[in-house]
């Protein structure tokens, strides 16, 4: 293992920057192998992940309850910095985790909610129904997952919510080019 600090660091100095090249302390850990080795490693990892899948429903339930509690706190106490942040974190965690847990449409609805919280000029002035429908949709998608027709309906629901949310965000950000660009821009991070 590479526990020691890097040695023999090579520094090339230019007028306004330095280029620092250090010996790669991890170089001995890589070796050539055929494609099958990588595929086998990934397959083992996917199998290990599948071994956790029995817990995913409970995990999703925990995340949904957290979202519900965050929304209830805003309804009860009025919007403030703390509960706004908690609503965002709860939605953001569902956005990041729900697809892994088997609820990709809930992740899509949560992403739409995150975009509203992040890009609305004033969250207090966002129509209450827009946020409420997102929270309710995420709960419903989780609850009704086992219904035969649920997948198609959930997909339609999350797309419709995203459409309404985007329409709102484009309208309210007309004079905020940085946010408008972010709302309209696709993700640039390669997935997978």
């Amino acid at each position, binding site marked *: *293992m*590479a*526990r020691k*600090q*890097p040695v023999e660091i090579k520094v*090339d100095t*230019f*007028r*306004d*920057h*330095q*280029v*620092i*090249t*250090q010996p*790669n*302390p*991890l*170089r*001995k*850990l*890589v*070796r*050539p*192998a*055929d494609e099958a*080795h*990588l595929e086998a*490693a*990934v397959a*083992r*990892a996917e*199998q*290990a*992940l599948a071994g*956790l899948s029995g817990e995913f429903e409970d*995990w999703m339930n*925990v*995340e949904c309850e957290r979202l519900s509690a965050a929304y209830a706190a805003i309804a009860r106490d009025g919007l403030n910095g703390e509960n706004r942040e908690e609503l965002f*974190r709860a939605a*953001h*965690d569902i*956005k*990041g*985790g729900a*697809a*892994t847990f088997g609820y*990709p449409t809930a992740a899509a609805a949560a*992403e739409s909610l*995150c975009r509203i919280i992040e890009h609305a000029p004033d969250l207090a002035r966002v129509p209450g129904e827009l946020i409420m429908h997102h929270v309710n949709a995420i709960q419903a998608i989780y609850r009704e997952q086992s219904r035969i027709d649920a997948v198609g309906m959930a997909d339609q629901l999350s797309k419709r919510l995203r459409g309404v949310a985007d329409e709102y965000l484009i309208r309210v950000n007309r004079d905020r080019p*940085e946010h408008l*660009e*972010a709302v309209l*821009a696709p*993700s*640039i*991070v*390669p*997935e*997978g």
Partner: protein
Amino acid sequence: MFIIDFNKLRFLVCDDNAHMRRILRTLLHSFGAREVYEAEDGATALEMYSHYVPDIVITDWSMPIFDGLELAQMIRQPDGSGNPYAPIIMLTGHSEKRRVMIARDAGVTEFLAKPISAKGLYQRILNVVANPRPFIKTKNYFGPDRRRNTNNAYIGVERRVGGKAEIVQQPSLLDKARSGS
């Protein structure tokens, strides 16, 4: 194709979500990693970074106390007492261009967008282990070279004074492995 001896790598995983930490730990163990340390906030992560000296940091963006971005900035302190060169993989749901640029400018080495996949994680780790980029230090940046490729089609202004021809690339480990040296 190349594979990694994961059992000799030490990881630090930083995510405030316990479910995501469990998934990451499961994936890393299944790859063969034995040493996986976990932190649920940026402050704990920084403390563990100094204590355990991990080879690779995998961090979420949004975390309490200070976030993954601030963690990256604190690790990338060239004059600090810790190792400022460790690869940092940001595993995040924030995949908008603006966010990616901000994190890149904080010294993040690789990005992986959630939802996480086993293949995506493996590839990012392979990339930071096998293809480390040289570090660049300027008046306001210290971190991996943000120019991943030489773009011959680039026609803009050369922002680095000194000329790009003088920039020394760290030899690719993949090339070394191919040549058997």
